[in-house]
């Protein structure tokens, strides 16, 4: 029988199924408590940090217009981009390390998508009720559910707006931002990004939920590459649980030929991505351990030992030993430690001074009235420190090199770039090469450890 090749057809031959909404059942247990702890601390950290002050300014501020990132007492400039790159590499390495140890810990406990979705689901539960009430409500007509739905979406939108303001507050000082936003006196671009980010929060946490994890997240795609047979994963103990079947509570199930699994399918109901962990570890599983909590709860009620679904390794399930320390984990941990130490050392010994020497290209050199050879430069001095400095300048590299107008110091305000035109003069008798290297040494008068040497070129006539 022929069937028309129509895309997205909803006829019975189509293999495309419309997505069914997942109603995760509420869980209680140790992992649920750990997750709640994670949510509270991470959200507290996110919403609280922009309000902290340091030395009269916001403690954490990514001042994009001013092209400076302030983190507590340190200010990072575009020249410090290298540190950001290293930080990103560190974050990636840490992620790989934890994945190799215990799978998708990030996904289940720390990822912002999980954290915000948890809060949005909590709000949904408070407004619409538990799983059975939610399913029932969605089946009723609009007349009966509009109030609850409107309440839920309003709370979601308010929280999203608060999130949007806080996010922009990392880039614009939040005290003014807050006031300006609610008095409608915020700049148009800041306004735009508040609403953009609020919309993203509302869309991802309220509507998309697990679809972000399944379809959008790149980590979800490659995390399995870091998991081996010794990684702790969430697994159903098939040997213990199967064959599954319901039975009376105090019955001897082993005599009946049954395993510990009573096939209550609560592990499926609590799963936020809607999978059945008893089928084995799957791509969609985000490692939230809700199934562990749920099953332990049931096992307790049945007076069976807990852990039918538990954190274990593939090798352990096959009866082999658990290998926490192995080449993969040791190497990740070592590289992580070394890179962290190097990054901290590098930042703490950073010299808050930058010197650029730009030689005037209009002429190779010129001869002064006294017969000296002269090169013209522009000296760019960037004071990346928090206070004003006066720098002593010393030139070396050619014997008896003189600075025009006898300039020997330069004062630069904090966070400013000073462009100083400079003339260097040399007795031609002291010139040994056509092109000589000269060294500009700057050191702060009030802080001798702030010292930098930069080299430039001094050009002269052909020497004999």
């Amino acid at each position: 029988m022929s069937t028309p090749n129509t895309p997205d057809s909803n006829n019975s031959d189509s293999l495309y199924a419309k997505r069914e909404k997942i109603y995760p059942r509420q869980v209680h247990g140790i992992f649920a408590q750990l997750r709640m702890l994670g949510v509270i601390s991470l959200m507290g950290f996110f919403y609280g940090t922009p309000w902290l002050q340091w030395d009269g300014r916001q403690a954490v501020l990514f001042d994009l217009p001013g092209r400076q990132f302030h983190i507590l007492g340190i200010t990072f400039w575009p020249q410090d981009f290298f540190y950001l790159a290293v930080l990103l590499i560190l974050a990636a390495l840490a992620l790989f390390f934890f994945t190799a140890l215990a799978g998708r810990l990030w996904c289940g406990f720390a990822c912002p998508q999980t954290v915000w979705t948890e809060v949005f689901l909590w709000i949904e539960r408070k407004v619409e009720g538990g799983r059975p009430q939610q399913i029932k409500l969605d089946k009723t007509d609009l007349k009966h559910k509009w109030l609850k739905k409107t309440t839920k979406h309003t709370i979601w939108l308010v929280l999203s707006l608060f999130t949007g303001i806080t996010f922009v507050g990392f880039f614009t000082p939040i005290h003014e931002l807050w006031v300006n936003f609610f008095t409608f006196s915020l700049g148009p671009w800041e306004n735009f990004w508040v609403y953009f980010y609020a919309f993203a929060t509302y869309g991802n946490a309220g509507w998309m939920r697990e679809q972000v994890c399944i379809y959008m997240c790149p980590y979800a795609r490659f995390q399995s590459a870091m998991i081996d047979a010794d990684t702790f994963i969430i697994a159903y103990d098939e040997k213990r649980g199967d064959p599954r079947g319901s039975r009376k509570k105090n019955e001897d199930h082993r005599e009946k030929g049954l395993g510990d699994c009573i096939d209550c399918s609560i592990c499926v109901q609590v799963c936020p991505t809607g999978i059945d962990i008893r089928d084995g570890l799957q791509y969609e599983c985000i490692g939230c351990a809700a199934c562990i909590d749920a099953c332990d709860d049931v096992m307790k009620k049945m007076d069976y030992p807990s852990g039918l679904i538990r954190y274990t390794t593939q090798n352990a399930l096959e009866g082999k030993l658990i290998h926490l320390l192995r080449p993969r984990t040791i190497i990740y941990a070592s590289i992580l430690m070394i890179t962290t130490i190097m990054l901290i050392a590098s930042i703490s010994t950073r010299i808050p001074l930058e010197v650029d020497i730009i030689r005037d290209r209009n002429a190779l050199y010129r001869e002064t009235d006294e017969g000296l050879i002269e090169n013209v430069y522009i000296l760019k001095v960037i004071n990346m420190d928090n206070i004003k400095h006066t720098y002593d300048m010393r030139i070396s590299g050619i014997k008896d090199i003189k600075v025009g107008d006898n300039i020997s110091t330069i004062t630069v305000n904090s966070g400013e770039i000073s462009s100083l035109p400079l003339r260097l003069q040399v007795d031609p008798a002291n010139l040994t090469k056509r092109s000589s290297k000269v060294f500009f040494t700057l050191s702060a008068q009030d802080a001798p450890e702030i010292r930098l040497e930069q080299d430039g070129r001094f050009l002269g006539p052909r020497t004999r």
Partner: protein
Amino acid sequence: MDVVKEQKSPRIQRIIAVLWPSFIMASIGTILFFSAFDPHSLIDCGDLPDISRLGVYTIGFFLLWAITLSSCLLTCYFQRPCHNTTHCGD
């Protein structure tokens, strides 16, 4: 004779495949571009209207997103099968 039907990925996955990678690359591109080029320098050299830095970042980002989005759209378009793989029972 059974008809071999291609299983299509969910619509949301196809939408995400166009919007999301383009968004990521546009963000990275914006960061790299504006780390090198200061908006005020661009306004001076390019004789462009006087907009705040954040405005320039925003417009630059969305322009870049439009370009990367077109790229993703074209990729998805060119991924469509060329040959008609389903045949009526013959």
